[in-house]
């Protein structure tokens, strides 16, 4: 039976952007408030999963042509690489640092190396969650 999912697909096209925005917001708010790479990554993965549900795996793979196993690995790699960064500066492993910079147009902004670490965490979470969902859906 061919199911009619026009409504789901129409809603998804809008909702995905809301979810993605929330993911980015959560990711950056994690610096000083609840949120961070893990939560941000989970919400990002939720957006991808919604796309898979509303359309199907092949359509999603056409839109996002990544091997999600490699995405996860890339995340892990970034996480550990930031740890290794501290070896270059001769400070204990995983030491993080931050600084305030004057950015044109935006004004005073705070940058910290922990953000790179969090990017890695987010990518790892997205990669792992989507890989799990994809392998389960292939099994059925």
């Amino acid at each position, binding site marked *: 039976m061919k199911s009619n999912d026009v409504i789901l697909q129409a809603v998804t096209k809008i909702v995905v952007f809301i979810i993605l925005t929330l993911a980015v917001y959560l990711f950056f708010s994690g610096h000083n408030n609840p949120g961070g790479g893990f939560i941000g990554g989970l919400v990002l993965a939720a957006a991808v999963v919604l796309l898979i549900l509303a359309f199907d795996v092949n359509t999603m793979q056409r839109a996002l042509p990544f091997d999600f*196993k*490699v995405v996860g*690995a*890339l995340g*892990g*790699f970034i996480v*550990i690489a930031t*740890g*290794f960064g*501290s*070896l270059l500066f*001769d*400070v*204990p*492993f*995983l*030491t*993080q640092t931050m600084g305030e910079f004057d950015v044109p147009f935006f004004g005073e902004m705070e940058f910290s190396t922990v953000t790179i670490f969090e990017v890695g965490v987010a990518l790892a979470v997205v990669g792992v969650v989507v890989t799990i969902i994809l392998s389960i859906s292939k099994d059925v």
Partner: protein
Amino acid sequence: MMNNMLVLPMVIPLLTGIFLIFIRRYIKLQKWISLSAMIVNAGISFYILNRIQSEGILRLDFGGWTPPFGILFVADSFSVLLVLTSSIVTILCLLFAFSSIGKAKENMFFYSFVNFLVAGVNGSFLTGDLFNLYVFFEVMLLASYVLVALGGEKRQLRESIKYVAINILSSWIFLVGIAYLYGTVGTLNMAHLSERIAEVGQTPLLTVISVLFMIVFSLKAGLFLYYWLPGSYGAPPPAVAALFGALLTKVGIYAMFRFFTLIFYHEPSITHTIIGILAGLTMIGGSIGAVAYKDIRQVVTYNVVIAVGFIFVGLAVATPAAIEGSIYYLIHDMIVKALLFLLAGTVILLTGTGRMDKMSGLIRNYPSLGWMFFIVMLSLAGVPPLSGFIGKVLVGQGAIESGHYVLLTLAFLSSIFVLYSLLRVFLNCFWGETIISEEDERPLKKGWVIPCVLLVLATIGLGLGAESIAVYVSDAANTLLNPEIYIDAVLND
């Protein structure tokens, strides 16, 4: 003081494992990279071991957070000796895997998961924080779940379900134990735990919590709670089984030693007595298992169980000589169990069966294999020039000094059972009329023999050169028996 080097034995395998995912298609490159990562690892741990001798216990506070607030790695002789041995054993198991594991598994990230496994094992040895220990246990276990099931044979899937179930249960108990301990004492740094428990005294409540941890580590180490072990160690391919037999139970043993010498050492009449009883029962059960089965996989895995019991005799006795003996025996056992599993695996690969009644006269077809099996048998039984001897003598000496005669008897009876069980394998499989004609003979690959030969050399070398590692072992035993050395290095530095 900068000790970033301490993190490398854990991070190098982790990074290698992740990197190998990117080069999934280049199997040959994967082999070389993982092999060289392990060799570098071994070199680094040897360097750290020597630094400990001159500078005392080293520590690394992650992110600069000083203990007891942050997570840290602590390297004393005991942990680094185990890291070094596990690196060497992994090198040789990898060599064996190169020519035996097969394309299908290599394509499914086999080498990545071996690296993750080693990262978890080394992290467990090095960490100085209880929750971090839990995390590394999980890293190790997750990798091992994959390695048990990889290949997807019926037997593997059946055993992996049991293996996963029992380990999830024990991880849960571990977590509950950590929660209890944190609720009672308010810290998770191992040195700080030890200090606080020494201050308030080991109350009955704390002793109960310590027994909870004992259950967890017994499950992981195969101390009395070993019923899951023979099945799940017999299922995976030989190279993986050898890694498991050599490394996984040893992590449980390490954690148990650390806990009951550093943290819960105030009530030996309760905790150490229980350990002694469990060790005795383990040796009895393991001995019965080792002589009961006709499948060499079962015989070999029950030999792991006996060795676990034997090592814990040293902890139960807890005299300097016995602890030293246990450490010697632990190192010896990692090497020899890897060798035993590889040899048994080679026999199975060659004959296509694990049942001893279906094979005979292999020594005529493969003389080198037969003689190596003979040597490993003598080494496990504790015959003098080989590496098992010194550990057995020291544990025995400790048991006599402290009057643990029952354990002493059981320990040496179990050695006879080890000898008998392997002699049975030797007589059935290697002696007698050969049943393989020269045309049907499968060639013995170089890649299978070389790692075995190297391990044989290691057991002979460790036996003859016991003197050369005596410095490290006695330092390790000294640190285990004097917790204040460890505490000083972590907290008052």
